[in-house]
């Protein structure tokens, strides 16, 4: 028989406000096995923990039940308390009477009755608890960063600087991400490439960093400290280590009418291409969808002009398997597509562009060589209208419900750059709210208004109509003047909402990392663990977690790196002792558990058994690798013969809890 102590926490008025804590302590005193019961305002405080420790020692307790907040909050705390008093930490159970009771009930009698029932269930469980000893697992001292934008590069550099090996997997032919496409950065207006490309080169040259560009993750197995990841290196049809990046092939390639993704389709590239001058790695890639040689076998010009003999039309996708201790997700964002916003005429006029397209137009390496001209006729625009919140803060279902956060600032930047370079241009910005929280951000926006004479108008644009003379009629409301405006513009720039990259969802499934309804990765704790996924060993960097600007992304990337370094610095990780095991006498060898195990922890052994008639039979039985098992319990509910059981959450314990609730 166990000797159980019950400790009921008031949590100030969080629990005591809707639960009569004295009554709970008194009611639980008479439960089977309970020898001690008390309540205290803050069990997690030092005094509270001392009450627990003393009670364990004085009453020689073999088990403890803490009626308090969620185990997600303080399970670790109270396990440490139990250990300090000489009790096995797994002999302590928490009855969650805060999140699952006091916070969701309004009246005292209901709350109290439920708290008592939850306490009884925990006591019934502790009566069947057995001490568990946690094992240890080794840590692979190598990190994987998925995504090679500024977030991924920064995280990788920080981890590499700490002395650990890092691999960056980037799906496009070069690292650099969205920041490489930008012209200037707010609020200082320094050139994006000038601050990004040195980091790209650093990453490429760092002895601890390996870049897998033009590659994707296809499979992730294992768990924190011991991930096994399969990386698909897509065929470039160019030998990466031989190509010198001279670019002769791109000039000679006869297929030149392919939309250039780097310039968002505003100009063309050839079938063999290098995305931009500072690409890392600077090697050519053949686009298999457009290469005549790969499609028909008749061309081969690039191979003829290549002095380095780097072209290899027979190259195949390559699969690499690598082991990692930690994985950082840095998959970034994309602007949304605008098919739901026909009122802005994006699909009908080339002079209506997204902000990222405008960024390319302003960029010296962009489709117009940095000259501000209208895409339709190459004429310098005299009137430009910027529309903010296109697809952001939209609950109608056409766009995204969140604020994309960066648009107010980059629109102020665009407006300012335009007025600076071309003072003859009239610039209008239609806004709903101007959100410029950030260091030197509001000052930046005010400069646009006060020093650069940008016309900020409070109100949204209702429609953009392309006119016969090539102008764009912008119909909008000015809410302050209470007027409807009709502006004849030469160009319209849409501050398009941003959304997580489409690859993020399938990746989240592979990583068993959770996402919100917008496909942003969720953090382990919104405030206190913002760079960790709830899945152990998975970390978050950059916009994959939510809209962010560059300074914020870089800070978060550094924070993620610190968490990774903290993990990789350990030689051993304490395993969760709550793992599954199979009763070999009951196992019928059906393999059901092996199929449902998400961690690949179950294997089957051929084992000799003594039969009742004294013969020996070889039977196939399940065996669990305790170091790999994460204790999810999928196998225990799948097993048809009841042979699988989970330590710490055994079938008997769960049934005892249910019985105690129903009693």
């Amino acid at each position, binding site marked *: 028989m166990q000797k159980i102590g019950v400790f009921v926490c008031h949590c100030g008025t969080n629990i005591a406000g809707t639960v009569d804590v004295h009554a709970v302590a008194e009611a639980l005193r008479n439960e089977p096995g309970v020898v001690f019961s008390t309540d205290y305002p803050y069990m997690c405080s030092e005094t509270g923990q001392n009450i627990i420790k003393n009670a364990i020692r004085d009453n020689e307790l073999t088990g403890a039940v803490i009626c308090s907040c969620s185990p997600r909050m303080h399970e670790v705390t109270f396990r440490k308390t139990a250990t300090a008093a000489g009790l096995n930490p797994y002999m302590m159970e928490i009855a969650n009477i805060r999140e699952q009771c006091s916070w969701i009930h309004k009246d005292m009698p209901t709350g109290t009755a439920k708290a008592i029932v939850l306490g009884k269930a925990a006591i019934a469980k502790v009566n069947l608890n057995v001490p568990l000893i946690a094992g240890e697992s080794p840590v692979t001292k190598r990190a994987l960063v998925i995504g090679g934008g500024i977030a991924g590069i920064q995280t990788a550099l920080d981890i590499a600087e700490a002395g650990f090996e890092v691999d960056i997997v980037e799906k496009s032919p070069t690292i650099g991400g969205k920041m490489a496409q930008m012209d200037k950065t707010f609020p200082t207006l320094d050139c994006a490439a000038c601050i990004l490309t040195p980091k790209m080169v650093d990453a490429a040259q760092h002895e601890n960093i390996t870049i897998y560009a033009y590659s994707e993750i296809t499979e992730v197995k294992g768990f924190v400290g011991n991930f096994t990841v399969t990386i698909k290196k897509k065929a470039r049809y160019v030998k990466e280590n031989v190509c010198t990046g001279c670019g002769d092939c791109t000039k000679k390639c006869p297929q030149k009418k392919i939309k250039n993704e780097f310039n968002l389709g505003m100009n063309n590239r050839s079938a063999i291409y290098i995305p931009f001058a500072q690409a890392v790695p600077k090697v050519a890639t053949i686009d298999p969808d457009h290469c005549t040689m790969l499609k028909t076998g008749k061309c081969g010009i690039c191979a003829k002009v290549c002095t380095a003999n780097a072209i290899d039309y027979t190259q195949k996708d390559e699969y690499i398997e690598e082991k990692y201790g930690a994985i950082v997700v840095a998959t970034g964002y994309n602007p949304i597509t605008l098919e739901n916003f026909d009122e802005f005429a994006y699909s009908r006029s080339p002079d209506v562009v997204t902000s990222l397209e405008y960024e390319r137009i302003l960029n010296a390496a962009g489709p117009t060589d940095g000259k501000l001209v209208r895409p339709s006729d190459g004429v310098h625009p005299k009137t430009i209208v910027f529309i903010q919140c296109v697809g952001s803060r*939209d609950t109608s279902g056409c*766009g995204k419900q969140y604020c994309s956060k960066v648009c107010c600032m980059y629109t102020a930047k665009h407006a300012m750059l335009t007025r600076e370079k071309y003072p003859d241009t009239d610039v209008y910005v239609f806004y*709903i709210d101007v959100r410029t929280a950030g260091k030197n951000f509001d000052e930046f926006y005010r400069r646009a208004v006060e020093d650069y004479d940008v016309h900020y108008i409070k109100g*949204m*644009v*209702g*429609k953009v109509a392309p006119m016969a003379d090539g102008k764009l009629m912008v119909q909008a*409301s000015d*809410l302050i003047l209470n007027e*409807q405006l009709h502006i004849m513009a030469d160009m319209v720039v849409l501050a398009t909402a941003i959304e997580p990259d489409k690859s993020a969802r399938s990746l989240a499934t592979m990583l068993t990392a959770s996402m919100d309804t917008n496909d942003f990765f969720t953090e382990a704790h919104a405030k206190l663990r913002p760079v960790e996924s709830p899945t152990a060993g998975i970390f978050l960097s950059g916009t994959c977690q939510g809209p962010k600007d560059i300074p914020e992304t870089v800070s978060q990337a550094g924070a993620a790196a610190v968490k990774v370094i903290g993990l990789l610095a350990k030689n051993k990780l304490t395993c969760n002792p709550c793992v599954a095991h199979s009763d070999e006498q009951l196992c019928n060898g059906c393999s059901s558990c092996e199929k449902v195990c998400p961690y690949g922890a179950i294997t089957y052994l051929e084992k000799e058994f003594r039969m009742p008639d004294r013969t020996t039979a070889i039977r196939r039985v399940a065996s669990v690798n305790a170091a790999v098992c994460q204790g999810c319990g999928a196998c225990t509910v799948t097993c048809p013969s009841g042979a699988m059981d989970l330590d710490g959450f055994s079938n008997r314990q769960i049934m005892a809890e249910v019985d105690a609730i129903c009693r």
Partner: protein
Amino acid sequence: MQTFKKNLTEQVLRTSGVNVRKCMRCGKCSGSCPSYEEMDYHPHQFVYMVEKGDVDALMKSNYRCLSCMACVERCPRGVAPAKLIEAIRLMVVRQQGQNHLKADQIPALLDKDIPQQAIVSAFRKYSK
């Protein structure tokens, strides 16, 4: 008087099914409105006036809304300003008695220059 106004507002909200609190004051409705110059109050004002309980002013002045529903279509928050106008018209009609448009009156009112859309729109406005 205060209770009367409150009841009126509640009735408009209930009949229209519009949640005026979802409005984030972006003004896209008024930016979209083709009849803006014709109206005493503009779509973004309807929403605000209903929210503040100022329905009787709207009841005296809502006949220039074309019921084209552009504001409903384009509102990023799904607020539907034109539906408020429909509801207010309905209240006016109810207060005046049974004077609304009936289907069998339509042929007599037609001439060949009236666009089809206007008939549909008028029917939508005055048949409830």
